[in-house]
């Protein structure tokens, strides 16, 4: 599983590096480098195999029932990209250590960079398309974080957002495209997809699939007309620009074109779309690059242009063009990363990147200048540098392709024009910066950077020259396996050499070189023209107008229309929509209201209870403005509900309902003390009628639904629980066994919710000061005799008994009605009674003031019990059990269950006790804070 490990390593390393960074910048750099090196080491076996033409595929079952595997693949193309990602990644890590100033957090940058490294490795090593997409989106996210690294700068935040919107949006299109691909092929595995080119091309959905996939690729690789995010991404620190926005992430789009080349290429649609967009991008990027005054801006548009070149090569679609495309991916990554690093050094040394201010740096930094010149020569396509070779191949392919098209002669012309501009902007990059007069008013005095800051650039420059002069001896094996993986078939005849004889491609190169030099030195009138046109065609402005004005304003208007800030309106809308949905379901698929199940006869007691419920409910609603009365009536309703549970064979529910009822009513009584005793009459009668109508419809709907359910026969999974309760869970009370064993995980979630609610309430009540009323609704003064003696005494006497009952209920819960929830509530009621009868002051001296530790202990106990089953190789929360009898008293209570579920139930018990007490005690404390001082003195004496 070393592919999976290699992808995971940077993700885990990111956390490690963030920690290491606290102990110094050098350690951060070393550990980041070690992480990248480790990932490389893990990939070595598979890499070595891929040179022998072996595709390594490793899979790990993930969700086998859904047919989902974690599947990784390393073939020639994956090898090439993995080398680029990790190799250039290592150089960038070294470079960034010297680039970032001391105020910037190096750990954060490295952590983000490693996140990106892992995501990008995931993209190029995925065998499963959906998995590829997940990593694809992760690269967008980590790119967002990296562009916005200097988060205080507005340009950085805007650039990051724009990049995320475009690449993330493209990712959504890509998801749709992948889903179509997977459905057409019948598999999401790349191996099957790559082998199904003929099926795909003949399928009626080929066109939409192609469009969606291309949308994803083009946005990621900054192809025209989505190119404009890339220059704005230059707000990122320069190491990031060198790594993500020239060498790797923007190559993800062309990687996808290469990856899916056998599956999707070979149709006129492919040629026109991919070739056309590539060509347009090549031209647009090259032309704009010349006019950028910012060093990084120039490089960004040059990157766009070169990505266009690669895209155009894949668009041409011949095997030889694909080889050239792969070759240019390698070459561009090498020289452009070097150029960005050189630009970073210049920025670092001069304090500015504006080519109108920088000049004549040759004297100050001859070494850096030499390095930059070689890289720029490669970018221009000058012989002996690597860029020349792939550019020659490109020119040759264009000439071949032009013969087959109407107006084909236009192609070589346009491409040569782009070449002319490329030479011109490369020349500008060198000549403006390093030659001419010495700079005058720079923010800093430039000199050579630290020794090790230049090392990464030197390595890249040496590679440029080695590949450029001895291609067959250096890059050929890598290119061969990568291109073979792209084509998934035999390689065409190709000759990697400097000299191919005098042919059209050579002429085009010569024209580009000569034309470029002429264009650069005669650029003045063009710049004047550009200054006049600039600003009218700003893609960013159009984008922001669309996003800000159209999208966001519409969203805001819609929200304002729906949400008026009135809870009543919202609640009414919510309920009415639920009624409409439910009602339409009823009307659209009518079925008989009553089922065939035999009905139970009505007996007199039940009828009386039902009448009590009807009376109490209606009275509570009618009298709801007299709050105390309504509350008492609600308590009566709750008691009848408990009786319903008793009657229909649910003793556990009855016990729970009964104890919850007590706690709830006490709580509401306490709260009512601080609220107005009466609700003011509502001004609008029409609203009462409207709400009454809604309530009537809702009530009738609920009645019909309940009736329809209850009268139908049922075939539930209850049988399984009943049969396995004793053998599997070791208890005869099936409800409790379900709670603590079969569905223990749910229960664990529920007690967590309870704990969170209690903590939320604690936060709400903190420092709460409420005006305490001095008299009740009828004007009677509150009684100062706080704690009647008889009640206080009896409450104290009852406490041990109540605790004994709750212990009994807890212990027997696994076999007879009871359990942690009920026992916890009983304990809570017993303790709350002490507060009520004896007062907060008296109780506080005898009980802990806060119950947070109780809640925490309960959750921890439940968690540990669950995790303990891992020790025995069982899934989380598997119960183990045996039977035990207590000595001496065992005779009376009999043998009882000793299951690990018991410890879990004890955890539930502790959480319930802790949460209930936390809620009520803190409300009681709010009381105390509001009680008049005189009464408090009296209470203290009590």
């Amino acid at each position, binding site marked *: 599983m070393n592919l999976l490990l290699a992808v995971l390593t940077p993700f885990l390393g990111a956390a490690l590096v963030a920690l290491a960074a606290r102990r110094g910048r050098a350690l951060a750099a070393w550990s980041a480098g070690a992480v990248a090196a480790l990932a490389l080491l893990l990939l070595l076996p598979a890499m070595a195999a891929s040179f022998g033409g072996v595709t390594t595929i490793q899979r790990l079952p993930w969700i086998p029932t859904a047919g989902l595997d974690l599947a990784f693949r390393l073939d020639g193309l994956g090898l090439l990209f993995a080398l680029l990602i990790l190799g250039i990644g290592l150089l960038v890590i070294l470079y960034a250590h010297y680039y970032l100033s001391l105020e910037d957090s190096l750990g954060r940058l490295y952590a983000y960079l490693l996140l990106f490294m892992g995501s990008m490795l995931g993209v190029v090593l995925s065998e499963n398309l959906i998995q590829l997409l997940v990593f694809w989106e992760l690269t967008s996210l980590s790119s967002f974080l990296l562009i916005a690294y200097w988060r205080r700068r507005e340009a950085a935040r805007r650039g990051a957002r724009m990049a995320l919107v475009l690449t993330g949006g493209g990712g959504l299109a890509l998801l749709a495209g992948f889903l179509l691909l997977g459905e057409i092929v019948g598999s999401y595995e790349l191996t099957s997809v790559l082998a199904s080119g003929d099926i795909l091309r003949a399928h009626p959905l080929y066109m939409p699939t192609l469009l969606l996939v291309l949308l994803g690729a083009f946005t990621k690789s900054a192809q025209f007309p989505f190119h404009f995010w890339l220059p704005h991404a230059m707000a990122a620190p320069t190491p990031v620009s060198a790594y993500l926005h020239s060498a790797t992430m923007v190559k993800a789009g062309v990687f996808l074109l290469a990856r899916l080349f056998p599956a999707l290429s070979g149709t006129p649609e492919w040629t026109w779309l991919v070739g056309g967009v590539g060509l347009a991008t090549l031209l647009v990027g090259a032309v704009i690059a010349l006019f950028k005054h910012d060093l990084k801006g120039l490089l960004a548009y040059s990157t766009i242009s070169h990505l266009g070149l690669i895209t155009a090569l894949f668009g041409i679609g011949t095997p030889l063009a694909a080889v050239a495309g792969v070759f240019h991916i390698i070459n561009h990554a090498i020289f452009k990363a070097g150029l960005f690093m050189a630009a970073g050094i210049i920025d670092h040394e001069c304090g500015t990147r504006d080519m109108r201010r920088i000049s004549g740096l040759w004297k100050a930094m001859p070494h850096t200048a030499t390095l930059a010149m070689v890289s720029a020569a490669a970018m221009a396509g000058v012989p002996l540098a690597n860029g020349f070779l792939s550019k020659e191949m490109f020119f040759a392919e264009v000439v071949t392709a032009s013969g087959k098209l109407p107006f084909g002669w236009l192609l070589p012309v346009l491409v040569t024009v782009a070449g002319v501009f490329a030479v011109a902007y490369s020349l500008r990059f060198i000549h403006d910066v390093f030659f001419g007069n010495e700079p005058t008013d720079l923010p800093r005095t430039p000199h050579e950077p630290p020794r090790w800051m230049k090392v990464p650039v030197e390595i890249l420059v040496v590679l440029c020259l080695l590949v450029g002069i001895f291609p067959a001896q250096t890059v050929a094996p890598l290119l061969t396996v990568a291109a073979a993986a792209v084509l998934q078939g035999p390689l065409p005849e190709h000759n990697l050499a400097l000299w191919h004889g005098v042919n059209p491609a050579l002429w085009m190169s010569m024209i580009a070189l000569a034309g470029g030099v002429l264009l650069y030195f005669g650029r003045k009138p063009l710049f004047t023209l550009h200054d006049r046109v600039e600003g009218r065609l700003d893609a960013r402005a159009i984008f922001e107008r669309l996003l800000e004005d159209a999208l966001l304003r519409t969203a805001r208007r819609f929200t304002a229309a729906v949400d008026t800030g009135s809870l009543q309106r919202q609640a009414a809308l919510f309920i009415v929509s639920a009624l409409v949905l439910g009602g339409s379901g009823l009307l659209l698929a009518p079925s008989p209201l009553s089922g065939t199940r035999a009905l139970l006869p009505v007996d007199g007691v039940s009828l009386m209870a039902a009448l009590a419920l009807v009376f109490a409910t209606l009275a509570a609603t009618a009298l709801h403005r007299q709050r105390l009365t309504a509350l008492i009536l609600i308590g009566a309703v709750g008691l009848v509900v408990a009786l319903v549970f008793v009657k229909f064979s649910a003793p556990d529910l009855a016990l729970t309902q009964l104890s919850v009822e007590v706690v709830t009513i006490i*709580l509401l009584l306490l709260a009512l003390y601080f609220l107005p005793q009466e609700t*003011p009459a509502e001004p609008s009668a029409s609203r009462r009628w409207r709400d009454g109508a809604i309530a009537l419809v809702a009530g009738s709907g609920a009645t019909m639904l309940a009736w329809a359910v209850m009268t139908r026969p049922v075939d539930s999974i209850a049988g399984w629980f009943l049969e396995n309760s004793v053998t599997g869970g070791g208890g005869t009370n099936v409800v409790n066994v379900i709670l603590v064993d079969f569905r223990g995980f749910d229960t664990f979630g529920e007690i967590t919710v309870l704990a969170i609610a209690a903590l939320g309430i604690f936060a709400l009540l903190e420092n709460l000061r409420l005006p305490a009323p001095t008299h009740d609704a009828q004007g009677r003064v509150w009684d100062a005799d706080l704690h009647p003696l008889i009640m206080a005494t009896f409450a104290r006497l009852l406490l041990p008994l109540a605790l004994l009952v709750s212990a009994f209920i807890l212990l027997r819960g696994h076999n007879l009605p009871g359990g942690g929830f009920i026992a916890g509530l009983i304990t809570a009621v017993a303790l709350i009674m002490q507060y009520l009868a004896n007062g907060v002051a008296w109780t506080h001296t005898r009980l802990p003031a806060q119950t947070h530790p109780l809640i925490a202990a309960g959750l921890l106990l439940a968690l540990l019990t669950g995790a303990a089953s891992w020790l025995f190789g069982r899934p989380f929360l598997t119960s183990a059990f045996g039977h035990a009898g207590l000595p001496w008293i065992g005779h009376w209570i009999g043998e009882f269950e000793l299951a690990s579920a018991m410890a879990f139930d004890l955890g539930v018990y502790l959480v319930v006790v802790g949460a209930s007490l936390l809620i009520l005690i803190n409300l009681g404390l709010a009381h105390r804070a509001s009680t008049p001082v005189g009464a408090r003195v009296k209470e203290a004496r009590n």
Partner: protein
Amino acid sequence: MEALIALAIGLLTGCGVYLVLRAHTFPVVLGLTLLSYAVNLFLFATGRLVVGQPPVIGSATAALGQLADPLPQALVLTAIVIGFAMTAFVIMLSLRARAELGNDHVDGQDEGRTGR
């Protein structure tokens, strides 16, 4: 008997909905309480009504298949407790709102007055 329970569920739902739509916090809390009774009863009723056969093995003479369905009971048991936590949270929220805003209207402002 089923009809009685169905009617009870309907009545609790209707009254609960009416109270939830009131403008002051305390009746809304009471309405939520009624609604949670209704929901709990309904969930419980999906296991169908069975008299005198609690799902405790060995307690009843009947065969396993005739015992009450334990699954809805387990669901409702936790629902009751969570419902208590929810009621408690909402009532504390309304107390806090009263303290911060000086009134107990659900929107934080009395009708007829504008602005906050």
